[in-house]
């Protein structure tokens, strides 16, 4: 089978009035959005804007309260099993098992994803090479640097060749060099495999460098949508940066923007990654 170029002409992720409420609070409010195959799409917005809730619903971890979404044509509510076979997810938290080596982590997920035995070794060797971890393959992940852990986690997503990869704040807590290598990894996945990537980030520089389009969310809604260039132009000021765009559309900070558990959780992952 050749490159999946035909996907470049279709919407691989479609959100149809996707909604999630918690009691009286609406975390995600009737979001309507299409993401094209082969693009790197950025979901931006202040804490509590609903980005993580959108990702949780798209990755089938959380059922929507109403509305739905399709991924590669499969419905997240009615066909979660089919959706899971088409996607990979790298949570913001550290999701590689620190008590195992890189090789053991890769073997475990190759089996969980049902990678055929005859190609498992080849896939694992390729993933280790992609992550630049051949030398460290037999060391416990617990002793890795933050950048190494992230590279491994992204390489885990290569084992079953998903069509869509979800990355939740992929470079939080990383030094500039490690960040650069993660960016290169992400770009290779899109360029060489035609993968579609949906990521969330708080770094406008990251969104500007990587994303073909971004959506800025606030209070559960999409406030702005377009390429970074388009959004900068839309402000009507010369030399506008994506930071300016972010500030403009993130006004009226929600009251729950930064609660204690958010802070302690992101701090914890910073410590782990540091």
């Amino acid at each position, binding site marked *: *089978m050749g*490159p999946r170029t035909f996907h470049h002409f279709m919407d691989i992720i479609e959100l149809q009035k996707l909604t999630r409420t918690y009691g009286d609070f609406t975390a995600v409010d009737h979001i309507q959005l299409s993401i094209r195959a082969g693009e790197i799409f950025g979901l931006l917005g202040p804490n509590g804007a609903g980005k993580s809730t959108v990702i*949780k619903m798209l*990755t*089938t*971890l*959380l059922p929507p309260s109403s509305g739905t979404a399709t991924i590669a044509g*499969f419905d997240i509510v009615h066909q979660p*099993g*089919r959706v*899971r*076979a*088409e*996607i*990979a*997810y*790298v*949570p*913001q*938290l*550290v*999701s590689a*098992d*620190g*008590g*195992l080596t890189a090789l*053991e982590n890769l*073997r*475990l*997920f190759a*089996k*969980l*994803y*049902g*990678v*055929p035995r005859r*190609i498992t*070794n*080849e*896939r694992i*060797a*390729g993933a280790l*090479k*992609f992550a630049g971890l051949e030398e460290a393959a037999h060391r416990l992940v617990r002793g890795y640097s933050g950048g190494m852990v992230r590279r491994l986690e992204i390489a*885990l997503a*290569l084992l*079953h*060749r998903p069509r869509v990869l979800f990355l939740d704040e992929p470079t939080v807590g990383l030094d500039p060099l490690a960040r650069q290598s993660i960016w290169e990894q992400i770009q*290779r*996945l899109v360029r*060489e*495999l*035609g993968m579609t990537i949906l990521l969330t980030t708080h770094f406008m520089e990251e969104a500007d460098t990587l994303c073909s389009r971004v959506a800025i969310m606030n209070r559960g809604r999409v406030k702005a949508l377009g390429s970074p260039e388009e959004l900068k132009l839309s402000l009507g000021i010369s030399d506008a940066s994506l930071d300016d765009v972010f500030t403009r559309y993130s006004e009226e900070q929600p009251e729950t923007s930064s609660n204690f558990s958010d802070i302690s959780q992101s701090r*914890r992952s910073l410590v*782990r990654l540091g």
Partner: protein
Amino acid sequence: MKSLNNATLLEWAEPFAVPAGRFTGLTRLAGQCMALVETEYIKLRRDPTDLISRAVQPALWLLIFGNVFSKLRAVATGDLPYTDFMAPGILAQSVLFVSIFYGIAVIWERDLGIVHKLLVSPTPRLVLVLGKALSAGLRALIQGVFVYLLAWLLGVHLNFHLPALLGAALVVLLGAMGFSTFSLIIACIVKSRERFMGIGQVLTMPLFFASNAIYPIAVMPEWLKVVAHANPLSYEVDALRALMVHGGSSLFGVGWDISVLLAFVSVLTLISARLYANLVR
């Protein structure tokens, strides 16, 4: 093997076209389940300190409690020496304590993001739960070997016939699967380590004392007899008493004991598979 230096990723990673609808193939499910158990085995082999420290408690019970009570002759156990009577109870107790710890381990994995990743994989929830339960079973079986060794050193008259040993292993496995799944359900409901610790403490000791582990059901007050009959631990102990020691006998019948444990495991596994995703919501 192709080199990545020259080849693009695409060349290297040819798609393997998994028909997504066939994820229910039994061999695949068994493979997924065994991968989870293998992970536990790798970790236990790498760091057995936890296994060793957990062998201390049953040793204390057998050595101190067992010795004192057999001197007191406070518990009527018929012809059976008291240490022989309580050894199966202590085995069941250590299986219980090992298994109850699985809930907190899964909360820990949730805090790290490992559970998210497992839940997004195409592994059915039922298989994830069974993988955890069998991991607990593996750990409990190793624990069981320790308890047998201790009991043997203390002069308990152990039954080393192969069918009895295999039967005891099955009962230990089922007990561990049941109680680890029970603890997984609690973890899915309380979701935090602090609350789990509280509830874990509140549940384990009553489960232990409201069973026939260290005294027969016959000596209990009526209300406690009712509780003991509803307690799966009683059936585990009852079967072990017939299988582990010479001269020990079962009150309910080993067949009935195993049936009760099987039902216990099945029902809890189904509930747990339903609740597992709650951990990340």
